[in-house]
């Protein structure tokens, strides 16, 4: 099983022999009921994807070549970007499922992306996350301060723009930095596994999916619950990222490899803790009115005496 993930230049035969050689290799079943007739129809290049999946994930040279042929339009036309939206509903769901269930040894990129990185998933997951954080933040503040007569609820729309900036910056700049770093290390140490920029963006985008339900559950105004949620989300998405990038830095100097993985997880932690701290008020604030009332009573008592 490890051989499948590591070696790019593996011989491949036809479907039967490669499946026989790796009986526990994961294949995506695309021949669902009613799916097969449709798969052959549309001229969207779905035939190429079907070949890719049937032959297993070891013909990456072939798809690299075809990928080279794909990007022939100039980058300011729609056609150039059309190749990045060439996904179906079930593929997107598969990738989301893969980001939620990190299995040790299975590489998210090799398993699910397979040289077909898409921009649909990362873009919409980030957009949903922005909305989820903004709405949950507003809702939780509203619920915490409910019943306080001195607090006037104002929906804070500028939080949406701040959330959007932070999350999109994270989803694009960190992969860019990581890609540059991996490229630099690749020039020094020959790594077996290397990722393209879009694949890294894809992994980061899909790994943020776990934060959507987490953000919604952060409405619960209990500090312990919130921190448990942070730990769980961080555990899942951090492990997806760590397992994806470990093969890419494994060949390198031990310290550099560990430092890279630690940095990735640290940045992820910073994002989640930062979002929790900034967008969600601490639940202890609802104790303030009672402490404000007490000095009033002592003042009244002093005046009346």
């Amino acid at each position, binding site marked *: 099983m490890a051989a499948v993930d590591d070696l790019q230049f593996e011989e491949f035969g036809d479907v039967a022999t490669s499946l026989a050689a790796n009986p526990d290799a994961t294949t995506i079943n695309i021949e669902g009921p009613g799916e097969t007739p449709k798969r052959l129809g549309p001229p969207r290049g779905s035939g190429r994807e079907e070949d890719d999946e049937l032959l297993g994930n070891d013909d990456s040279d072939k798809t690299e070549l075809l990928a080279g042929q794909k990007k022939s339009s100039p980058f300011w036309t729609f056609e150039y970007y059309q190749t990045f939206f060439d996904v*179906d509903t079930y593929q997107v769901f598969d990738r989301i499922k893969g980001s939620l269930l990190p299995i040790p040894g299975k590489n998210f990129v090799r398993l699910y992306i397979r040289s077909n990185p898409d921009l649909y998933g990362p873009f919409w997951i980030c957009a*949903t996350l922005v909305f989820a954080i903004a709405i949950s933040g507003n809702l939780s503040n509203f619920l915490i301060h409910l019943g306080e007569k001195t607090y006037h609820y104002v929906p804070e729309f500028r939080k949406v723009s701040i959330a959007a900036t932070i999350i999109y910056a994270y989803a694009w700049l960190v992969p860019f930095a990581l890609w540059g770093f991996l490229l630099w290390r690749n020039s020094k140490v020959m790594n077996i596994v290397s990722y393209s920029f879009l694949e890294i963006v894809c992994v980061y985008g899909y790994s943020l999916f776990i934060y959507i339900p987490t953000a919604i559950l952060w409405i619960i105004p209990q500090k312990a619950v919130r921190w448990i949620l942070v730990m769980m989300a961080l555990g899942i998405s951090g492990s997806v990222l760590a397992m994806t990038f470990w093969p890419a830095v494994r060949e390198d100097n031990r310290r550099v490899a560990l430092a890279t993985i630690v940095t990735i997880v640290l940045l992820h932690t910073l994002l989640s803790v930062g979002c929790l701290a900034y967008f969600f008020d601490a639940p202890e604030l609802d104790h303030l009115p009672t402490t404000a009332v007490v000095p009033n009573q002592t003042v009244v008592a002093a005046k009346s005496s």
Partner: protein
Amino acid sequence: MFVWGESEGELGINFDHIWQKTLTVLNPLKPADGSIMNETDLAGPILFCVALGATLLLAGKVQFGYIYGMSGIGCLGIYALLNLMSSSGVSYGCVASVLGYCLLPMVILSGSAVFFSLQGMIGTVLALVIIVWCSLSASKIFISALDMEGQQLLVAYPCALLYGLFALLTVF
């Protein structure tokens, strides 16, 4: 000036087609005919936008600017997305037309806001149902007109976000 009996009025408005498209929107489970979008007309959508504004006005919210602004930008976004996701391109007028037609259930929602406040459990559930209804209709028409099989939910999701914004406008 309006000749109701004939199918082609003097203004070039084909009432028969408008009615057909309206029926397609109102029944989200019936598969759509791919050819109904061949002629893009904006009469229906504009009518529904005005109706939405009018019902919001009745409920006490004067927000015409927001409606038109959000419609324009939302249409632009969906237009870009559909051009990226489909093999055959789509024109902006077609996108605006489909999204406008599928705004009809939202008019029902804002109409009901006149009679009872939507800020409660019933209102939230109703709003969610209407959002799902609108986006399923819109995505159904888009994928049948653009031959994008297997991508209905991927198209429905951005439409749901757009209609969700409209619903927020209606509810709050």
